[in-house]
Structure formats: structure tokens, C-alpha cells
């Protein structure tokens, strides 16, 4: 019963703060509202019996939102929210799409013939996950690893101001590097 109450409180909080993300003027407030929503998601995951994954989500989202707040304040013209502003396009169309989608999903949720529960949770849920990732789900784990590595490489490439193609031309065959400041000893 206690977990029932906690679930409903967390659900309402998650949806409400998720909606508030797009209402707040202040970017910092929007970020922390999103953090609240995702922490509530983590709480729901813990309530459903996945303690380890819930804690992982809490840790990841806290750090992610802290980084996000920095970027928000860097890129937005109104980081403190001192003046009201709305920066939306096509709110009506989007509202219609989301309303229809939500109605469809709700209909599906209540009409779908959900399968009966199969099996029982193992003694140690985390151990089960670990054995699965290192066993039958190894391909998933390797794909995630490759995707993470590709992200590291491509985000560094995108964030570099001047790469070798800027210095040496598209075919990398320039006689001398085109640098704004001449390098070398005794310049």
C-alpha cells in the first residue's frame, strides 16, 4: 500500500515537472524541472524492484542535468528567466499530434491483451542483469560499447575548432600548414 501511494505521488510529480520544463521562462529552472521528472522516473523504477538501475538513473541524470544546465546558460539569451518569453513554433499542431498519440496509446494500453506474468524475479536482480549482459545479451553490450566509442570520437571531431583538414586542405596535401600563427623555433 505504501509503495502504491509512493508510485502515484512520483507519477504525478514526474508528469507535472515534465510538463513544467516547457513552461518555465528560466533555462536553469527548466533544467532542474527535467531533473525532478527524471528522478521521479528513477523512483518508479526502484519501486518496480530494479534498485540498481534506479540508482544508476539517479546518478547519471544528476550529472547529466548539471552539465545540461551549464550548456543551457551558455547558449540561451535568457538564462535567468528575468523576462517572460516563449520560443515555440507550431504549438497547436504539436498539441494535436500529442493529444491524438496519447489517446491512441491509452486505448492501446487498455485494449491490448497483455500476456500473463511469466516467471518470478530472481533472488538477485542485479546479478541476473550482469549475467545476461555478459552472456546472451553480449551483442547488445558490444553494440552499446561501440556506440559510446563512436560518440566520443564524433563529439571530439565536431567540437574541434581547427582540424587537420583546415590546416592542410581537403586532400591533406598542402605544402605548409595554414596556421594563423607561424609555429616553430625562433618565430
Amino acid at each position, binding site marked *: 500500500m505504501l509503495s502504491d501511494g509512493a*508510485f502515484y505521488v512520483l507519477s504525478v510529480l514526474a508528469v507535472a515537472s515534465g510538463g513544467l520544463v516547457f513552461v518555465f521562462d528560466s533555462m536553469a529552472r527548466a533544467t532542474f524541472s527535467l531533473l525532478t521528472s527524471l528522478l521521479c522516473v528513477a523512483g518508479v523504477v526502484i519501486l518496480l524492484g530494479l534498485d540498481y538501475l534506479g540508482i544508476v538513473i539517479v546518478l547519471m541524470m544528476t550529472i*547529466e542535468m548539471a552539465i545540461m544546465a551549464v550548456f543551457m546558460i551558455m547558449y540561451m539569451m535568457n538564462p535567468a528567466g528575468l523576462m517572460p518569453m516563449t520560443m515555440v513554433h507550431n504549438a497547436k499542431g504539436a498539441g494535436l499530434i500529442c493529444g491524438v498519440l496519447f489517446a491512441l496509446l491509452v486505448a492501446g*494500453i487498455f485494449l491490448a491483451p497483455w500476456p500473463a506474468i511469466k516467471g518470478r524475479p530472481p533472488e538477485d536482480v542485479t546479478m541476473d542483469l550482469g549475467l545476461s549482459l555478459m552472456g546472451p545479451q553480449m551483442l547488445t553490450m558490444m553494440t552499446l560499447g561501440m556506440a559510446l566509442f563512436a560518440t566520443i570520437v564524433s563529439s571530439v571531431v565536431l567540437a574541434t575548432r581547427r582540424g587537420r583538414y583546415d590546416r592542410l586542405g581537403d586532400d591533406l596535401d598542402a605544402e605548409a600548414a595554414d596556421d594563423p600563427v607561424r609555429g616553430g623555433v625562433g618565430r
Partner: protein
Amino acid sequence: MSLEVVMLLAAALLCAGLFGALTQQSIVMLMMGLELMLGGVIVAAAGAWHYIAPGSADGQVIVIVAVTAMALEMAMGFAIVTALFRKREIDMTDMAAELKG
């Protein structure tokens, strides 16, 4: 608490996130909408694990995939915003419409 209620929460989060992703002009705000949508996916996967197949770890693996997707989306999104901003001082989706189909 039942499967339906958990899925309802997931659907609500997904639709709220989709609304944000469709309406927000700022690229960073758009990414927040995507994060919210993935939060809905996490809830749905955890609910499916708990109420349909707790015997296998597949539901947990989907949660891991969704969490990883969130991290990748953030990193790549910020890298692209940084590159766009550095080249042309753009931080709005409407200004970066060259690839529009």
C-alpha cells in the same frame, strides 16, 4: 499499481516529451523533450519487466539501452550545437534548416 497504470505514466511522459521536442525552437530545449521521451521508455521497460517477464533480464537490458541512448543523445546534441554555434552563431532549429527535406 498495475501494468496499465505504469504504462499510462510512460505514455504521459512520452507525449509530454514529444510536445516539447516538436514545439521548442531552441535546440537545447528540444533535446530536453527527447530526454523526457526516453524517460517514458524507461518506465515502460521497467513496468514490462515487473508485470510481464520478471524471470528474464531482457526488460532490464532495455532500460540500460534507453539510459545509454540518453547519454549519447546529450553528448552528440551538445557537440552539434557547439559546432553550429561556432560556425554561424545559431542556437535555434529554424535557423538551421538547410537539411530540411
